[in-house]
């Protein structure tokens, strides 16, 4: 269980998060949506301990988050796929395993995303999509209760995209809590159990997709999100 309690974050004068209260206490896929600069990545990074919140608390399984060990139970996929240039894919994955211990699902994931084909290549020689596949393998190769994916679909080809969706559904079936940020609404429509919509650093809407469609009286999630934004601008 993950709980954000009144999370505030300021970067200098810029107030990015204005008291976020969110609780994820059941399994499922939660899409965290919002326009650019709404605070999605900052919120996720506060959970991972990369950003220090200016105020508020983050609770993990009822305990205030502290130390580094709690990250053993969270898989995190960063938004930008960059790596040490002179290591090969295999060496990089070894590097992570050296830090975190033997990964149980590495081989399975490498096969699913076709990483085996370029496993001995240097990371600097890989294309953007190939890097994203390596990023996915390194993030998902541990069997964790919580999975945090920041824009997981960037640069993926259709085959890899299908593999990713299948993997996410499998994890959903296994009772995992998955937090997902993306700008691709098709993915949200297809996968998300619940939507959290952030605007200007606040939770503007939280609920199921159906509720959102009924509330906004729109045919699709894409339209609903667009309407939320237009309404906000008008007010």
């Amino acid at each position: 269980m993950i709980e954000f309690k009144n999370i505030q974050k300021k970067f200098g004068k810029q107030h990015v998060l204005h008291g976020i209260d969110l609780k994820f206490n059941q399994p499922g896929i939660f899409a965290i949506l919002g326009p650019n600069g709404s605070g999605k990545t900052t919120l996720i990074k506060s959970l991972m301990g990369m950003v220090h919140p200016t105020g508020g608390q983050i609770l993990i399984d009822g305990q205030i988050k502290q130390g580094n060990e709690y990250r053993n139970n969270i898989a995190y996929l960063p938004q930008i796929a960059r790596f040490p240039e002179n290591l090969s894919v295999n060496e990089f994955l070894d590097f992570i395993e050296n830090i975190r211990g033997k990964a149980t699902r590495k081989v399975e994931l490498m096969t699913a995303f076709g990483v085996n084909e370029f496993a001995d290549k240097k990371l600097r020689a890989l294309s953007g999509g190939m890097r994203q596949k390596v990023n996915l393998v390194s993030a998902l190769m541990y069997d964790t209760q919580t999975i945090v994916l920041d824009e997981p679909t960037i640069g993926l080809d259709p085959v890899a995209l299908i593999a990713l969706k299948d993997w996410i559904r499998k994890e959903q079936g296994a009772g995992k809590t998955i937090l997902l940020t993306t700008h691709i609404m098709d993915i949200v429509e297809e996968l998300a159990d619940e939507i959290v919509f952030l605007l200007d650093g606040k939770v503007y809407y939280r609920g199921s997709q159906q509720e959102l469609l009924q509330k906004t009286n729109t045919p699709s999630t894409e339209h609903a999100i667009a309407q939320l934004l237009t309404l906000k601008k008008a007010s």
Partner: protein
Amino acid sequence: MIKVFKYCFLDLIRSRWTIVYLLFFILTCGGLLYLSGDSAKVVVSLMNVVILLVPLISMIYGMMYMYQVRDYVEILLAQPISRKSIFGGYVLGLSAALSVSVALGILIPLAFYDAPQIMSAQWLMLTAISILLTVIFSILASWLVLANENRLKGFGLGLFIWLLLAVIYDGIFLVTLIALEGFPIERLALSLTLLNPVDMGRVLLIFQLDYSALMGYTGAVFEKFFGTLSGSLIIGGAYLLWISIPLGFLLRKARKKDF
């Protein structure tokens, strides 16, 4: 920390820039040895190269590498290890890879030219000072990278620090000595030397080579200081401070920073 160090070192030692750096020293040192034939003179020539280039390359290359690390460090920050282990490992790896390049670049040609000389005090001192300067400037570079998200500003500050310690400081030093020449300024000169790791290296080498007689009375005071046990302890302490204070700043920045 050791795990991060291991992979950082592996990454760096394969980089073509590290290899170019190694080849540069092999060519310079080998060229000087075979052209001049007098190893004491070569140490002086190499000293001038080391004093200027080692801090510059450690600073610029260190910053280039650490900005690259900055791009992917999120993957490591998401693992269950402390920031101290991550950045400690990287600084250690960076310093080690560059130190190995310089040390091998100096010692390989010497081994071919005259192997027993490797154990002579002046060559050992030259190698030790190259390593110390590499470590100090690698730490400064890493700290500047964490303190400045703006790369242009980071590189600007890095170059300024190098220029200040390796070039401008000597100018100010000289002007101070000339302005105060009517006073007994040996202690001042000594303290000013201890405040700058580059100058300290240069003076240590000069005294190792017995050129201090050229420096007159000040030279005698310096020689007396550097020759004593307490002098050596103070120099060791000064170098230790030059490593530990920037390292403290770096680890503090790493702990507090938002990535």
